[in-house]
């Protein structure tokens, strides 16, 4: 598979030989080739210098393996329009591909032939060349897609033995060492293996790299299972709408959204479940997916609440590009909804009800972001900046984890991180007499302290660099009350770092 980033570069014509090169142990080598380069006799893994000698007009570009991996993941997400289970085939050396589990899916596209046709067409219009196959097992599909020659082939379960028999052994996804050994034994085609005694085969081709011959053969023939690991957990609840013509404006999305939401809500209601997170995916015709995700504190099945949250999140953030042809609304996480009896209105005037608060929090979080809507939650630590955490409110209002309340006075506003000040104390380990904060000198009228907080010795050394802190409550002549601390002790620390003064908070 040749990947090249075409954005911002002139697209090369098909007949110009192109290679992506990477650094190998012995200099530059070819990582991927296009069809024209392959037709001129170059091959993968060849030294770049040799290739240039053979073909002086070879166009080469540096390979970007990380970008390739990301592009494959994006493509896998896009393939979720055909099947909920899309797995990335991790075969090395440019043999990467995608597995789509199409069990029970093909009838939506007019059978397996129709599915292949649809795939080829859509990939083609997105500018991606494909080789694919439908087979009863992942191994057989892999072999057929790469070795059968055609660009879309199909195989039924009954034909699997004879269908694979004529393919070379390399079609079994084997390691380099195993292939070399098989060549030594004169085993060339998969059909050659059918007649061999299994125990002998298993003993001879004991895998050193986990790609053992017998296991691969059994996987291809469907004698043992091969699990596929999907890129995203397959969603159970999803409503899909596909359009004959790509939708190019938000009004179209807006128009179809209530329909999708109603379909999804009906399916969830049948199973007595509520969605706690929702995702709206638009599958663009150029091979990209755009999406919006919202979270709900309390699982809900009301379609109008979903719509409101999605609109709050901003449908205008969807970049429709040249149009989307499939729109899917999926409930990524669902929870059983129990019928809850609302509490009796015991106190007059109190409107305590968890639902309005959770709805408010969901709305605020959808628009402003999850981390902009928080609740301070106590945490067991003596260090002031660690004694409280800002937990996203969507999690905090359900939880009850509360640390112990503190009886020591604490400021109402805190500077995190603390701001350095210059302080002058009468005694080295006493309260400051005057200090300068934000370039304003202030004279201390009254002071109380110290409250000594030792560093947390149980933290690993690379995490905690703190020293002992002595906190003082200090009031200046204007009646403003500060919370200062001196970090470090005189005469106890190593002589390199002198104690320093910091401003940590303000009292009312």
């Amino acid at each position, binding site marked *: 598979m040749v990947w090249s980033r075409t954005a911002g570069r002139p697209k090369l014509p098909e007949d110009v030989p192109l290679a992506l090169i990477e650094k190998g142990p012995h200099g530059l080598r070819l990582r991927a080739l296009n069809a024209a380069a392959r037709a001129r006799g170059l091959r993968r893994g060849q030294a770049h210098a040799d290739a240039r000698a053979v073909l002086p007009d070879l166009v080469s570009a540096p390979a970007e393996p990380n970008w390739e991996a990301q592009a494959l993941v994006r493509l896998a997400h896009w393939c979720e329009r055909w099947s909920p289970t899309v797995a990335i085939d991790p075969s090395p050396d440019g043999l990467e591909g995608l597995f789509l589990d199409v069990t029970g899916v093909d009838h939506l596209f007019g059978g397996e032939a129709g599915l292949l046709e649809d795939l080829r067409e859509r990939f083609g219009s997105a500018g991606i060349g494909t080789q694919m196959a439908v087979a009863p097992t992942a191994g057989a599909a892999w072999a057929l897609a790469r070795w059968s020659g055609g660009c879309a082939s199909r195989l039924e379960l009954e034909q699997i033995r004879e269908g694979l028999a004529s393919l070379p052994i390399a079609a079994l996804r084997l390691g380099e060492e195993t292939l070399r050994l098989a060549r030594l034994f004169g085993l060339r085609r998969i059909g050659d293996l059918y007649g061999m005694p299994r125990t002998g085969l298993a003993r001879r081709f004991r895998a050193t790299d986990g790609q053992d011959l017998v296991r691969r053969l059994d996987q291809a023939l469907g004698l043992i299972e091969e699990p596929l690991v999907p890129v995203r957990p397959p969603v159970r609840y999803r409503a899909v709408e596909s359009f004959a013509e790509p939708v190019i404006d938000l009004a179209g999305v807006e128009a179809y959204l209530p329909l999708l939401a109603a379909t999804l809500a009906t399916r969830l209601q049948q199973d007595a479940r509520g969605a706690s997170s929702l995702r709206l995916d638009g599958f663009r015709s150029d091979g990209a997916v755009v999406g919006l995700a919202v979270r709900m504190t309390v699982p809900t099945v009301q379609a109008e609440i979903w719509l409101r949250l999605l609109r709050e999140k901003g449908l205008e953030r969807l970049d429709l590009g040249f149009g989307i042809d499939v729109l899917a609304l999926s409930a990524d996480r669902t929870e059983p909804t129990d019928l809850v009896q609302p509490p009796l209105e015991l106190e007059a005037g109190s409107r305590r009800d968890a639902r309005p608060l959770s709805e408010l929090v969901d709305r605020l979080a959808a628009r402003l972001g999850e981390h902009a809507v928080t609740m301070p939650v*106590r945490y067991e630590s003596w260090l002031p900046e660690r004694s409280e955490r800002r937990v996203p409110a969507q999690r905090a209002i359900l939880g009850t984890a509360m640390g112990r309340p503190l009886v020591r006075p604490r400021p109402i506003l*805190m500077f995190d991180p603390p701001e350095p000040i210059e302080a002058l104390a009468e005694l080295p380990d006493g309260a400051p007499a005057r200090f300068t904060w934000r370039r304003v000198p202030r004279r201390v009228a009254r002071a109380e302290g110290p409250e000594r907080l030792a560093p947390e010795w149980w933290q690993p050394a690379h995490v905690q660099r703190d020293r002992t802190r002595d906190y003082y409550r200090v009031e200046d002549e204007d009646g403003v009350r500060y919370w200062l601390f001196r970090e470090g002790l005189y005469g106890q620390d190593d002589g390199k770092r002198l104690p320093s003064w910091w401003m940590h908070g303000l009292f009312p």
Partner: protein
Amino acid sequence: MNVQTLPVPYPQACATLEEACADAPRAFAATLRFALSRLGNDSRPSMFCTLQRHQYEHGRLFGRGVEAGGSLLVVEPRKPIEVLWAAEQALRSGAVAGVVAVVDQVTLTQTRRLDLAAREGGASALLLHIREGGLSAARRRWRVGSLPSAPNPFDQRAPGAFRIRAELVRSRAEPLSMWMLEQDGETHRFRLADRLADRGLVENGRPAEAA
């Protein structure tokens, strides 16, 4: 400052929309404490809404120092208009007892919207102005300053109970006046330290008539 002959009662209950402004930037902490303590005290949580970037200027709200009883929802949007939006949503929903929002330059229309939303949700809103605002639909406008704290009975050199000065500079319902409030060390609520600031304080901090 006009001299009152009779002590004016401190309006305990918060109106649907009030405003507070610090008399100097250094009194922001006192103003915030005053604003939070004026919110309704029912079982619903309160909400504090401020711009994200304000935490570098004024510091971040520290829940341990508030201990407001109920839980506190902190909303920190990026844009000034989102502060008003979040406050209005919260007030209208009826899920919170009150909202303290730090604002700068709001228009009369915006404050009217907040007032209506607060009435609809049975909540109260307190706008914390960074600068003294102009026209607004607020029922009361406060100016808050910090005062030297009360004498500490256990240590002469240490600060005692925190004291602030709350001045009612505009109101529709009652005469304008000024109060000295003192924070209770245990409940964190404010109590009246001096009903009549104009007459001055006696030494033990009790009102002049009682002394």
